[in-house]
């Protein structure tokens, strides 16, 4: 039995036979220490997380070269090979890399068997260079994990806001988009994408304000909220969801059901 706060993973996931099925939809290969993936996998196991959807941001340059993205994707492939039962891969590209980036995306999906596309801050998601990558993701039937934050301290130059994600979602209604961090400012983030039925939000990247998960579920429905850790303490990140005052079925969707559905797991 895996204890999760005042409740248990088993309880949330419907019984002993369904434990260890939490899916972490947003986690990165540790910067400058890819072999530390093993530590994360073991720590995840201790917390009832059975599957980790990894992307790598390489050296976390804001505008990585194609070569840097290829190296980063190679790190993910290494983790997929090392922990085939645990690790699902997401491809990382800089949309400014154009045709060559699209070929890298194709390689990651077809050759490496990755299950999604990760976009960070190289280009704002409303930039015209992003569109072909979203259309390619639609073609491959994989989701796009799009970073978004609305910071009162000021965003990075090409950092997308929740409003940008809403605009991208309207341009590409057939895409499945996971907006990271509920857009950072979770009230505005959830409101911004409320009308975009093709947008889910993930739960990571912030300290857990009381009521955050409840707010997202109320605004979007539990089927549009998805658990992720973003490399933060697994126990705390899972407890964000398990401590929320939402129905048990909603917790199951957030912790595993939604990721299974959108990642095709």
């Amino acid at each position, binding site marked *: 039995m895996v*204890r999760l*706060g005042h409740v248990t993973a088993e309880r949330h996931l419907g019984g002993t036979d369904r434990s260890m099925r939490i899916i972490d939809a947003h986690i990165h290969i540790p910067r400058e220490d890819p072999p530390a993936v093993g530590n994360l996998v073991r720590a995840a196991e201790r917390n009832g997380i059975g599957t980790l959807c990894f992307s790598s941001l390489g050296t976390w340059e804001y505008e990585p070269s194609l070569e840097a993205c290829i190296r980063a994707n190679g790190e993910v492939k290494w983790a997929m090979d090392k922990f085939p039962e645990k690790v699902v891969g997401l491809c990382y590209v800089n949309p400014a890399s154009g045709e060559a980036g699209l070929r890298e995306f194709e390689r990651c999906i077809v050759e490496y068997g990755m299950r999604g596309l990760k976009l960070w801050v190289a280009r704002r998601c409303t930039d015209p260079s992003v569109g072909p990558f979203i259309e390619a993701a639609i073609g491959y039937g994989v989701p796009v994990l799009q970073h978004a934050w609305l910071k*009162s301290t000021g965003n990075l130059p090409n950092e997308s806001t929740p409003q940008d994600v809403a605009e991208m979602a309207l341009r590409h209604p057939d895409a499945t988009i996971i907006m990271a961090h509920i857009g950072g*400012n979770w009230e505005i983030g959830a409101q911004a994408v409320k009308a975009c039925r093709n947008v889910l939000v993930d739960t990571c990247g912030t300290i857990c304000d009381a009521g955050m998960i409840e707010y997202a579920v109320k605004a979007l429905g539990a089927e549009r909220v998805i658990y992720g850790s973003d490399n933060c303490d697994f*126990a705390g990140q899972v407890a*964000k969801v398990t*401590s929320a005052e939402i129905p048990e079925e909603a917790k199951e969707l957030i912790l595993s059901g939604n990721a299974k559905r959108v990642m095709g797991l």
Partner: protein
Amino acid sequence: MIVDVNAFLGPWPFRGLIYSGIEGLERLMERSGVSHALVSPLESLFFGDNLAANAAILKLAGTRSLIPIAAINPLLPDSTELLGEVADHRAIRGLKLHPGYHGYELGDGSAALAFDFAEERDIPIMIPVRVQDERLHHRSAMVPPTSPKGLAEVARLYRRVKILVCNARSDELTEVLDSGGSWGNLYAVVSWAQMEGFVASAVGKYGPGRLMWGSNMPLQYPEPTLEQIRKADIGAGEKRRILAENAEGIFNIR
């Protein structure tokens, strides 16, 4: 027994809270198994009157599970008056400072009266580095975090005062303990440290006697940070120290 050393009482002006007030805190404590919470007033962040800000806290003497902590803005003229009330109020077990919200630096001497009082009375001082993620601050109320350097500096200046650093990120707690930990009076409260494996790493580096647990409730739920301790890759005795025994000793909780 589980002791929460960083809880608040009062309203939050920037969003509605599901749980607030004494009843709300007690409900959160009950559902998460927390036996005692050291509570200070949220009003103190914004009020221009120390006594008014601490009015509810000063009435808490009879509450068994909620232990009052007075929050003081040392720049206000009624600071001495508040400290007089605290001196007469046996249930109050410590002081809390909010340098960012009150507009001073720890190293500039503004809070000297609070540190002198704590030293004389042998009560701890708690200092939340922040109360809310700076990136989420309302644009009309952008408040800088308290710097790790300032925390280390006051620990050096007031070596007989036990200083609890609350709501600091993992990297900030590490910096504080690396630079000021040798004075022996700095304690890291796990209430905002999100790095995977931080608790085990900090116990290994600084020992379990340097850590305590705090929830930042009712702005946050207790369970996420509580689970960080419960699930940490450390021994059961070390968890007991972090969750209760260290605080019991420092705050004389029975």
